[in-house]
């Protein structure tokens, strides 16, 4: 019966999930547009956050990742040791300034405190929702038990139905047992991935038997939800108690809040690369499911609370209807049972659809939802607030209708002839039961006062239940308001930190730009002086060149004023001069001219070198 109870509980949860997901999908379509528009801002913010991370934070992140990977067996001890040594070296190199470390640690501490407050609120909400879920589950058990009784009663009334019931229950139990054993054998347990695999298996089996498929789907989803709820609850409790360390918090949720935002923001812009994320990123992303499903489960549980109330009202209505009519219109019961069966099958189908939706949602969430956690949380909380307000309003209207019905019964009880039929008020079922019991009591001789007492007791119990529900709603509203406030403060602190970081960055950039401009100006002046000195040298050398060239040109263009000295060829000097010319002896001026040309080439080379040096100076880096 435990499996059957779980199936009923999870079927009810799936119904709530379907409604919640449909509503969330509508809201998400609105939020998605604005979220996409602000994706770049998220990415920028994530980058700023990542850039503001201190070497110690980076070191802690790195060590946390390495620890997680080593625990999963991905890294060997040797590789782990080398990676830690590298991280140590980088930390030592980066932590040259103790002030920077202290300032960074302060920023980190503020962020973590904000996150801790938010997560603590979520944990508290989850815990309260879980408590409410326990009552819902108990109520589901009652419904299941009533349903089982009704089916048994129907079977007794119809032996053929009893046979079908027995066979169906047997088949369902065997199939469920088989799937559980198979899931365990495959190692697909409580993790959400295992739940997804089980959901897929349930979808396949559901094709042959919707009841079994729905039960298995609900079972796996329920296990995943419960597991997520337990993990979120334990985490929130640990944060609240202060027993969680910063590293473990970063490992569990810190990556979800900051690092995954960056990663998924990248994934939005680089959708093609989204599927190529590293195994560690997928492992971290798998943990992300814990957080949204805590909220989802809280919403579902909250929905179930309202749903249960509604069902309670329906059952009460049905009871009130069936009690006076049961003895008259027996076939109507069968019709109602058929309707209930149809509802259950519909729930099974919806659960299958939910499985598909969840798969799609899983893919979407895989790519998109993580960056939008904050926005989604706000939206979901808004939805929850709206829904609570709506259902509160509906509850008030129902109470008003119930009061009107009571008034109607009171009025009708005063009508002659038929007034007696309404003498028992708005509790026809009770009246019917009371009638039956009255008949039995009449037969047994029991007094009618007992019936009245029982009616009063039921009324008191219902009032207590309604007050408990109202208290729970007020408490939930207060908690929601507190969470909104904490979220607002955390967001504001985060925005303030980002604004401060941006302002500081802008100031530093402005100072750096001013300093760079000043240095550039000095450098420019220095280069200008060097260039001027080079120009002077170049001008001097060019002047030398021009002088020599001009002298050459003048020498060739003008005439010589040198005295002509010639001797008689019959003298030694004259004959030497004659022979020098006669034998074609090279004029010494040529040798001198070559030396001069070589010197000119050297000067030109120096001039070119100076020009090259000047170009290098004026066109160099920073010029």
């Amino acid at each position, binding site marked *: 019966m435990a499996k059957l109870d779980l199936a009923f509980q999870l079927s009810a949860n799936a119904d709530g999930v379907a409604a919640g997901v449909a509503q969330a999908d509508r809201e998400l379509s609105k939020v998605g547009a604005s979220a996409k528009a602000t994706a770049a801002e998220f990415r920028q913010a994530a980058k700023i956050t990542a850039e503001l991370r201190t070497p110690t934070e980076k070191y802690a992140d790195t060590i946390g990742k390495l620890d997680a990977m080593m625990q999963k067996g991905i890294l060997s001890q040797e590789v782990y040791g080398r990676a830690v040594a590298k991280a140590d070296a980088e930390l030592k190199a980066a932590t040259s300034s103790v002030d920077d470390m202290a300032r960074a640690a302060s920023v980190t501490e503020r962020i973590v405190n904000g996150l801790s407050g938010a997560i603590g609120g979520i944990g508290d909400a989850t815990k309260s929702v879980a408590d409410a879920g326990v009552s819902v589950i108990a109520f589901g058990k009652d419904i299941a038990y009533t349903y089982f009784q009704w089916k048994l009663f129907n079977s007794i009334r119809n032996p053929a139905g009893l046979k079908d019931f027995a066979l169906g229950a047997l088949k369902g139990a065997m199939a469920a047992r088989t799937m559980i054993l198979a899931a365990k054998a495959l190692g697909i347990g409580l993790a959400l991935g295992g739940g997804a695999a089980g959901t897929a298996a349930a979808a396949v089996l559901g094709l042959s038997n919707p009841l079994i498929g729905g039960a298995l789907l609900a079972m796996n989803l329920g296990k995943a939800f419960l597991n997520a709820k337990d993990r979120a609850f334990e985490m929130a409790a640990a944060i609240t108690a202060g027993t969680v360390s910063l590293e473990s918090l970063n490992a569990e949720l810190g990556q979800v809040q900051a690092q995954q935002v960056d990663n998924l923001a990248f994934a939005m812009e680089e959708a093609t690369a989204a599927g190529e994320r590293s195994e560690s990123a997928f492992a971290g992303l798998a943990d992300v499911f814990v957080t949204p499903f805590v909220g989802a489960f809280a919403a579902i549980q909250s929905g179930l609370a309202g749903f249960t109330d509604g069902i309670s009202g329906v059952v009460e209505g049905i009871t009130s209807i069936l009690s006076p009519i049961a003895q008259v219109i027996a076939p109507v019961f069968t019709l109602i049972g058929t309707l209930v069966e149809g509802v259950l099958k519909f729930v099974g189908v919806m659960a299958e659809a939910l499985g598909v939706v969840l798969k799609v949602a899983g893919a979407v969430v895989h790519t998109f939802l993580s960056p939008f956690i904050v926005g989604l949380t706000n939206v979901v909380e808004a939805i929850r607030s709206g829904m609570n307000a709506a259902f509160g309003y509906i509850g008030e209207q129902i109470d008003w209708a119930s009061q009107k019905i009571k008034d109607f019964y009171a009025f009708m009880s005063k009508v002659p002839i038929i007034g007696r039929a309404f003498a028992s008020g708005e509790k026809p079922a009770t009246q019917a039961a009371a009638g039956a019991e009255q008949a039995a009591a009449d037969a047994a001789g029991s007094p009618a006062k007992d019936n009245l007492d029982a009616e009063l007791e039921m009324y008191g119990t219902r009032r207590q239940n309604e007050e408990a529900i109202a208290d729970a709603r007020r408490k939930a509203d207060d908690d929601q308001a507190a969470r909104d406030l904490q979220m607002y403060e955390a967001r504001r602190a985060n925005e303030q930190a980002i604004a401060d970081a941006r302002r500081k960055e802008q100031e530093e950039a402005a100072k750096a730009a001013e300093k760079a401009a000043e240095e550039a100006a000095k450098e420019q002046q220095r280069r200008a002086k060097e260039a001027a000195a080079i120009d002077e040298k170049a001008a001097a050398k060019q002047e030398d060149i021009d002088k020599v060239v001009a002298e*050459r040109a003048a*020498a*060739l*263009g*003008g*005439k*010589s004023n*040198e005295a*002509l*000295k*010639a*001797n*008689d*060829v*019959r*003298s*030694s000097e*004259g*004959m*030497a*001069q*004659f*022979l*020098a*010319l*006669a*034998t*074609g002896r*090279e*004029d*010494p*001026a*040529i040798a*001198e*001219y*070559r030396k001069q*040309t070589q010197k000119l080439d050297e000067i030109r080379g120096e001039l070119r070198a100076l020009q090259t040096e000047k170009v290098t100076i004026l066109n160099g880096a920073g010029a």
Partner: protein
Amino acid sequence: MVIIDYTELATVAASRKFGEAPTYQRKFVVEVDDPATKQNEIANATGVEFLSPHPEASYCKAMNVSVSNYNGSRWHYEVTWDYELPKQQNVDPNPLARADIWKWSTGGLQVPALYYYDTGDTLKVLQNSANDFFEGVTTDISTLQASISGNRPTFDYGLATTVTNSVNSSAYLGGAAYTWKCSGIAANPAVEVVNESEIRYWQVEVTLEYRPDGWPLQLPNVGWNYLDGSTKKRCYVIDTDSGDKVPSSNPQPLTTGGAISTGAPTVLVRRVHKAVNFQQYFGTPTQQ
């Protein structure tokens, strides 16, 4: 104051040396009636006068005479006549009538040695085996110097200035025109007494120099500048490496038109001395 008598002393002095002209001496004692008799009358009282031949050697002429008291007597005088061979033939007692005396000497000038005489007196270029000239090697060429000594009653120094350093304008003494040059003219005053007559005159000495290759300059036609059309420009040489024109450090050969040239320069023969008629001024040597 009459010459009473004279007597030739027996003492005869004669001197002969091989290869030299002989000399003789005659002594006379002249007796006078008056101690104040003129010395010229006493010397000529012996019948001997200047250029009188010696009785034994007529080629010796009376050239010197001296008169002195004989043994302390105031009325006896000793007259000594020295006879010598005159250097000039037919010497005239009148110095202005004497012929000019030509004296000759030879010399040499150092010139670059460019040629040499090979076997068979074949004239060849003096070069080494690589056909390079030996610069600085010199040789001598012969020159002839003529010194003319003559007595002139006057000395025209203007003419002497004009003639000095002039060359012969026409062939002279076997040399072509411009081969003789008057190197200098010197004149010294002189006086002689001939027949008791005082004759004053100038002993003029002219030096002539003969150069076989002539006295005009032989200059290479080179210069620092050349004519480019009508523009004078600086001479240049071509740098064979770069082909650039380089202002030359030495004068460069020129063509006859003044353009720049290459190779051996032409030789400009330029006479820088005026030419005069040497025959007119200096005559020809007389046979002595």
